């Protein structure tokens, strides 16, 4: 078990947290519609694939590919490491 210190958040922490949330929201808002819808339903509303399919009126396979594409878009936007690992794999090949 890891011991986790639990200091109460400073105003600075709070600002950082809010900035982070704004960054996430902007990234989601910037996504093209079908991908954003799938991501919001899955990640923020916790719907299953079947339920997302029902809400959006598409087959489960389409739900899966939209989620996959949506997550790729978000990863590119939000994870700085994505680019460097791409380059690493390119130089390795």
């Amino acid at each position: 078990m890891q011991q986790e210190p639990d200091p109460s958040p400073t105003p600075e922490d709070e600002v950082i947290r809010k900035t982070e949330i704004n960054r996430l929201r902007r990234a989601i808002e910037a996504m093209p519609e079908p991908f954003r819808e799938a991501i919001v339903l899955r990640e923020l509303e916790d719907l299953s694939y079947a339920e997302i399919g029902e809400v959006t009126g598409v087959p489960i396979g389409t739900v899966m590919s939209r989620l996959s594409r949506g997550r790729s878009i978000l990863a590119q936007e939000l994870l700085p490491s994505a680019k460097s690992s791409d380059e690493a794999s390119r130089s390795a090949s």
Partner: protein
Amino acid sequence: MPACEDRSLLIGGLIDGELDAANTVTIEAHIARCDNCREELERLQSIRNLLSNEGMRHQAPDLLHRRIAALPELQPKAANTNRIPGWLAPGIGGALAASLALVAFVGPMQQQQAMDAQLVSSHVRSLQPGHLMDVQTTNQHIVKPWFNGKIDFAPPVPELADRGFPLAGGRLDSINGRTVAVIVYRRRLHVVNVFAWPAASERSRLSVVDGFAVAEWDDDGLAFAAVSDIPADELRQFKALYRSRSNLAPPTGS
């Protein structure tokens, strides 16, 4: 694209706990061998972690909420276990890890956690096709007598349909090697399992294990544990309803 092209959908499915057993085994075996796909899994998981931030919840627009609310009754969600293979994330190993912990070292805390993990894993198991109910009826006067002769105690089966928790049925289950009664309720698309067994531990708590809310309480020499994937607040409400209606229920013949 770092991940193998034909695997990326399956990796997503694994993250979401949406794969069947065969596909889960296949993709886990592949990830164990393929560095690129393992990286992809970690990438997807970090995206999920970012989005699970508290401040990000409740972002779905009203229109979407209304469309969700208008959904017809669907099948209960498939088991959401095994989102991440244990070897990748020991901290999220879940029910299995906690069950192993019971064998490895049994302290009071571990016992409690192991108990919760058993309840959750039993709940998850119950959601698999054909496992949920031994007796399937919305009538409390059928569920209650059904337990007679199968167990040596009589759990209350209050009617809660008017408060949004219709009775679905009952079954026998085994927790800690002991036979327990399970009364099954529904909440919209979700299932609430109420486990009951004779015990007097005088505890009352609400915890969240692997994303499942677990509410425990004691009444009249029986221990109860309600498990569901509905929000913890709703389960607390369910617990209060169940307790108040149990006490109001007229005594039956036995």
